[in-house]
C-alpha cells in the first residue's frame, strides 16, 4: 500500500502517512470536503462520443453483472495545474455519491478509473472490499493495456481494453479467494502490536522450569 501523495509504502492501518503525514483531510483541503454527486461514467472532459459511451457503459455493466458486489466508475476531466491524479482518485472515491449505484453497494466496492486528457495521465483506485485482492501491479497492468490507445487519443477503446483485463484479473482473484480465503485474509489482518510480539518472543525463550515456577507463584 502506498501513500497517494508521496508514493511511499505505508502499513495497513496507518491513520496518516508515516512519511509525509498525508490524510484525506489534506485532499479535502485541496478538492473540497463535501460530498460529490456524480454518475458512474462521468465524462467531464468530453472525450467520449455517444457510441463510445454506450460501449463503455456496456463493459462497466458487464463487470457489475459478473461481480455483483463490485461496481466500476470512470471519471474524465482536467484536474488543473497542481492536481495530482493519485490524490484526486483517492479523494473522489471517498467523497463521491454515485447516483446510479444501488445504495446497498457502498463505495468500498468501487473501482475508479480517472483520466486526465490534459495532463495525459490516468490512475486507478479501489475500495476496501478489493483491498485484499488487488495489487498495485494489477491496476498497472490494466492501465498498460490502454496505454497504446490513449496515446492516440482513442480513449474509449483504451478503457474497454483496461476493463477487459480488469475483468480477467477479478475472475482470477475470485477463484483464488474461494480456494484459499485465508491467504487473502492474512493480508488485511490488523498488524501485531510491538509489545505483544516482544512478550511472545520472550516467553518462547524462557526455560521450562522457570516457566512452571512462575506459574506456581502466580497461582
Amino acid at each position: 500500500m502506498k501513500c497517494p501523495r508521496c508514493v511511499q509504502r505505508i502499513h495497513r492501518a496507518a491513520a496518516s502517512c508515516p512519511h509525509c503525514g498525508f490524510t484525506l483531510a489534506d485532499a479535502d483541503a485541496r478538492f473540497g470536503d463535501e460530498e460529490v454527486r456524480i454518475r458512474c461514467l462521468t465524462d467531464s472532459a468530453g472525450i467520449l462520443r455517444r457510441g463510445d459511451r454506450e460501449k463503455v457503459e456496456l463493459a462497466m455493466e458487464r463487470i457489475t453483472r459478473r461481480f455483483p458486489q463490485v461496481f466500476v466508475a470512470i471519471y474524465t476531466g482536467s484536474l488543473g495545474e497542481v492536481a495530482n491524479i493519485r490524490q484526486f482518485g483517492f479523494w473522489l472515491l471517498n467523497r463521491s455519491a454515485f447516483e446510479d449505484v444501488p445504495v446497498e453497494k457502498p463505495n468500498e466496492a468501487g473501482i475508479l478509473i480517472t483520466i486526465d486528457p490534459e495532463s495525459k495521465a490516468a490512475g486507478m483506485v479501489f475500495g476496501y472490499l478489493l483491498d485484499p485482492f488487488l495489487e498495485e501491479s494489477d491496476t498497472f497492468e490494466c492501465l498498460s493495456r490502454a496505454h497504446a490507445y490513449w496515446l492516440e487519443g482513442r480513449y474509449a477503446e483504451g478503457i474497454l481494453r483496461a476493463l477487459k483485463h480488469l475483468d480477467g484479473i477479478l475472475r482470477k482473484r475470485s477463484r483464488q479467494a474461494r480456494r484459499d480465503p485465508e491467504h487473502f485474509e492474512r493480508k488485511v489482518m490488523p498488524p501485531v502490536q510491538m509489545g505483544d510480539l516482544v512478550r511472545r518472543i520472550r516467553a518462547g525463550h524462557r526455560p521450562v522450569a522457570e516457566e512452571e515456577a512462575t506459574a506456581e507463584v502466580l497461582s
Partner: protein
Amino acid sequence: MRFFPVIATAVLMANAYALVEPTLPVWDLKQRAELEAAGWIPGAILLTDAPVPDEPQQPAAEPLQVEQPKPEEIAGDLKPSTDIAEKFLPAYFAERPKTFLIDPQGLLSPADYRDRLSFLNYHASDSSIDLFVYVMGGEQDIPSEVREEEMIERFFSAGRPAVVVYYYLGAPQRSVVYLSPSITDSVSAAEQHRALESSVMQAFEKIRHPEQLEKFLVQMSIRIYWMERMLAGDSASVAAAPSARVAAVRKAAAPSAKLLWLQELARKCAFPAALAGGGVLAVFAFGFWRRLSVRYRFPDFEVEPRLGGAHAAGVGAVISFASAAVPPASQRDQVPDYLRRA
C-alpha cells in the same frame, strides 16, 4: 605537278567526247536512187513499215471446241457427309430411349458417359420432368428424313413429362430443345429459349467438350426446376431464386460416380450425424452460456480504514500517456509524485 591542270583538262575533254553518241547513218539520196534503179535495196523489207508485197493472208484462228464434262463426271465435294451414319439411326430414333443419355456413337468416354448419366438419373429422381439428352457430333446433322417433332410426339406423349435435348458435342450453340406434348402448352417458347440460352452460356465457360456437356446439363436441370414451378402455377416463387435447389443440383453434379457410395453413406448417416453435431453444439452453447452467467464473489474481510478514508485507500497505479517514448514498462516502478506538474 606543273602539267597537272593541262592533263586534267585533256582527260575531261576526252570523257566529254566519249559521252556523245555517234549519229545514225543517213541515206545518200543519189546512191539510193541508183540502188532502186538496180532493183534491190538491202534491208529494205526490215526497215520499212509498208506491208510486205505479195504476202498471203492467213485466216483468223477459230476457238477450240472442247467437250463439256457430263454431270456424273464432275468430282463431288471433298468433305465427307455430315449426316449421322445410317447404322446409328435406329439407336437414336427408333424408339423411346431407355436411358436418359443417348450416345450410340460413343462420342463420350465411358467415364464421362457414366458421370453424366448418373447426374441425369439424379435429376429424374429429384424432378417431375425428365431430361433426355441425345449426344451427336459437333459437325453432324440429323438426316432430313428424321422429323424431330413427330418423333417427340410419338415417343414422349405418354409417361412422365420430359425435356429432350439434341446436344452437339463441341458445339453447344447448335443444341435444340423439345418439350413433351404434356408440358408444351404450359411452358412458353420464350422460357424454353431462355433455358437453352443460359445452358449454352454455361457450357461455354468450359473448354473441354465433356465439361461443356456437364455444365450444360446442370444449368438445364436448374431451368427445368423453374419450369416445374411454372407447371405448379407458383409463379410468385419462381421469381425468387431457388438457391437451395441450385446449390443442391450443383452439388449433385460435382461428385463422380465413384463417389456415389459415399453419397449413399452420407444419406444414411446424415440424421445421426446431425443429431450428434447438434448435441455437441448444444453442450458448447450451454457451457458458453454458463460461463457468461456465472457470478463471482469475494469474501468480505474486515479492513481497517487508512489515511482517514472511509471507503477507500487502495491507491493503485498511475500511468502517463503523454509520450510514446515513455512506455508503460518504464513506469512500473513509480517514483514519488513523478506525475506532478510544476
